[in-house]
């Protein structure tokens, strides 16, 4: 049976059962505290698990190999720090792979890390990444849940992507399927104010075939995109001639045209049905 501990920041199940706690302080506002008392992973619910998975960027099955210890300069050893061996990483940031077999310093959020030789599934966030790695623990689960969790993670990835795309869909003015029919790559003179981050707006002509949401009466649409290579715009999509896509468009009054500056703003046409579904879900 899971139960709140000290009525504050974490949950811990009784030994031998599916054991879970995680830091309430890290959860988004509105996260229902009552769900902390669920007695199993399945009862926790996919949505709440997704939130936890969204917060953790390294999840691993690990064994405590040292207590009151740290291998990372800048992280002093204390009762809150233990060394854990990553027996099997369930999620790993690409730049840090591979992690299996590595010993990392785990910083317990509640100051009560597991004991020596105990094994858990740890939900963590990267803290310091140097020659060694320090991770901040935000949740802990008994190892019996590993197989279930692996499956949940796969599904969760898709759900998180949907959530992020859905959030973006709700932020833009229009969504449409269309093709770039012309691009004017003329480099404009510096605009006022003059800054090294000047986007150097360039214009593309976007022929709309299907409007998925929003009001796009004036067609074709003029799509403005940054011509600069400046770092401030490095992730902004640059349309190419004849590119067909699902476009998430935001009307920019400063330049009197639509922009699609977020990397999520240009989606493959193959994603149209998914986007329709997400738009439908919002209605």
């Amino acid at each position, binding site marked *: 049976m899971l139960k709140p501990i000290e009525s504050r920041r974490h949950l811990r199940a009784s030994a031998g059962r599916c054991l879970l706690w995680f830091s309430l302080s890290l959860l988004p506002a509105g996260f229902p505290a009552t769900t902390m008392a669920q007695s199993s992973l399945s009862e926790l619910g996919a949505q709440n698990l997704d939130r936890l998975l969204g917060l953790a960027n390294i999840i691993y099955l690990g064994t405590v190999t040292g207590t009151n210890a740290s291998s990372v300069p800048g992280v002093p050893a204390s009762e809150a720090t233990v060394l854990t061996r990553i027996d099997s990483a369930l999620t790993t940031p690409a730049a840090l792979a591979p992690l299996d077999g590595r010993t990392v310093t785990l910083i317990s959020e509640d100051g009560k890390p597991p004991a020596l030789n105990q094994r858990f599934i740890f939900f963590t966030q990267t803290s310091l*990444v140097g*020659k060694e790695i320090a991770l901040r623990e935000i949740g802990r689960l008994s190892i019996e849940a590993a197989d279930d969790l692996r499956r949940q993670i796969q599904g969760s990835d898709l759900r998180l992507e949907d959530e992020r795309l859905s959030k973006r869909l709700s932020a833009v003015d229009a969504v449409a399927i269309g093709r770039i029919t012309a691009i004017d790559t003329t480099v404009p003179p510096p605009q006022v*104010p003059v800054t090294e*981050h000047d986007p150097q707006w360039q214009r593309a002509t976007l022929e709309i075939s299907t409007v998925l949401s929003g009001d796009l009466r004036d067609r074709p649409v003029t799509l403005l995109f940054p011509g600069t290579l400046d770092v401030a*715009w490095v992730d902004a999509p640059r349309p190419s001639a004849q590119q067909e896509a699902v476009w998430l468009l935001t009307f920019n009054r400063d330049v009197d045209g639509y922009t699609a500056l977020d990397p999520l703003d240009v989606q493959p046409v193959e994603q149209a049905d998914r986007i329709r579904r997400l738009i439908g879900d919002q209605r």
Partner: protein
Amino acid sequence: MRHSFILTFLAFFLGAFAGPAQAADPQIKVVNMIPATVSGETNQDSEPNLAVNPRDPKNIAGSAFTRGTGVCRRELAPIFVSTDEGATWAMNCIVPSDASGMTSDITVRFAGESDNLYAGILRRPGFLRLNILRTNNFTGASVMTVLEDRNSVDQPYVQATTVGGMDQVFVGDNDFNAPGGRTATVDESLDAGVPAPVFTSVRIEARATSGQDGPPIRPATHPDGTIYAAFYGWRAFNGAVATTDLVVVRDDNGGAGPTPFTHLTDTGDGLVGQRVVQNRSVPWANFSQANFCQERFVGSNISIATDPNNSDIVYVAWADRLGDNDYTLHIRRSDDRGATWSDDLRTVTNATNPALAINKHGFVGFLYQQCVSEGDSPRNARWVTHIELTEDSFTTVKDLVLADVPADAPQPQFIPYIGDYLHLMTVGADFYGIFSANNTPNMANFPNGVVYQRNADFSTQTLLDNNKEKVDPSIDPFFFKVTPPEKKIVVYKYAAKLICGVQDDPENTQLARGFYATAINIHNPNAETVKFRKSLSLTFPPSRQRPGKVIRIADDKLKEDQALEVDCVDIRERLFPNGFPKPYIKGFVTITSSHSLDVTAVYSTRALDQEVCCERTRGDHGKDCCGHDGRDPCGDKDREPCCRERKPNCPTCCFTIAGGHSSVDVEQIAERVMEREPPADEDEPDLPDLVPVAPFLPPPPNNPSHLPQNFCMLPDDGFVPADDIRVIVRNQGSGAAAPSITLVQFINPVSGPVATVTQDTGPLDVNGGETSLDFAIPNECYSAGGSGCNFDITVNAGEPPIEESNEGTNTASSFCPGVAP
């Protein structure tokens, strides 16, 4: 104690009496900052910045256009952190961002004393969205706190210091919200360490602009409260060239008051801000330049630095275009707080990213990156990163190449390719800096060595990821530390023998009976003012081949052809206000100077008149015969000294034999030229300073007219002779005193030393901690003739002594009147 004294002594000379320095090789450390665990990264980590914690230089933070994606959790960007003075680095994801995991601009700086790290960033999502951030734990996991958040601000460049316990943060930025197109701005908070600090936007452009100023606004702080800022005042802009003044403003009150940064007015137009140069052309070409090693021209290259020892001295560096295609760096210097400026001290063509810093010894460091290519072809072009060190305003320069790397690879992922700026700073004597460059692991690219943390095979010049697969070269941040050659301090030293006082014991074989005076004359023949130190090295007291105390007399300075004299009266008044510890003293007056001086000693001596007495006799007329007629009727056999031991049978028969001679000798004191290594750390530690103090007690009830003095404690009857002396040992230093020994030597005025007594003295607190010690006076210390009992007190008399800030205050001498009880 001796060690401490020498350190203090040398430290003084480093600051005040530094002579010419000798050339030597600096120590250099260059470190690729990408951690081993992210060895596969190929980001363009350009436009770096660096913050060294002045309170603890082991703690350093760095920044660059480094992505957190793949390392950090979502919507956070990393900084680089080191807790071992840059030897190893880690990434810490504490900068708020968006899904890109990076910032646009970012600069970082520690405050002076609080350990708070501040950052000025252009935050994502957003365009020209200024955030000023703070963390009190730069290696911790907590996301930096947002202190300021507003739009339409460009290129925030943060400086920070701590004054009076308050963090003072100055962020130079180009604020397009400023009215009238006068966009050069310093956002300042004079108490940025509080939970919700207030930042005030100070507009520092006083002149009309083309519509705005240039992007770089660079502040520089000084511990005395002087704040400088430099910026390009744009007077015209045609899309390709900005016609600009280089303007320096100054605040003398740490940015406080109703009109900050208005203390420097132009000698030409009288407006706020001295124009160092006017109407210079600064190119603007905001795209990768094939003939400039793939970097762009966006007029962002200004640096300003002030001398930590003298805020009057300030250097500025900037870039402009002198011809058709060049990009030229310039350096100028002001010695009068920015009012007037030198001509160019240094120019470098086809270079960017100038950064200046000055260390505590006055060394100026100049960091820059030069594009070197053969002909007009960008192929084979190289970015060469230099740091130049100079101690004579670039008359001579020590040029160190930190990196000489290919500039034609990799292809830019974005611009700036290596950065619109980098950073150089000092803590104490050390220069710390950061630059971005191609990371190909080739030792030939790093003439002064390099250390990689990420996986690299230098034998094959190949980067490797965590799976040992090949990784393409990219732009990485490199940390470096340069410690300039330590100056060998040249000092001129003079040791003049000194004898002061009266020696009237005819049986004393240490010094002939007589009166002695010494006057040492010092003349400055140099064209400049010379500072020097005078000290007294005693040889007597003590005696018996024991070394005496070394006591500082004073620090003085003489202008050209001025002279002064050190004489016995001066020494007695300064060092022995209660009189010499003995009837006479002997030793050396030492004079230490950064320049050669004329030192001459004048020795005056005169033999003393001698009183003699003889047996009472009567002359032919029945009168006492002793000397009434000027003759000596007694003959040599009857003559006796009678000053101290006047015998009862010879009370009246005295006369005086006139002193035999007097003399004046003049001696030129020899000069010694000495070289010293400076101390490792000039900062004076908090040390104790023990002094013996006489108690001040109320008079005994039965002897109300008696005021106890001179340490003497009367017995219960309230009358002399005292049976104890009471010594208060006081610690007047800023450091706690460990247990020590207090010594008293009792001396019979007639027969000499009779006893030496020591007592353990407990630990003493700082700034006035004291303890009281009683020493019983041996009866034999009192002379039978009623001359009392002399004694010498020495605190911190153990071997070895405890370290003290001033060992010249350890002794006292006095006497208790009376005869033996």
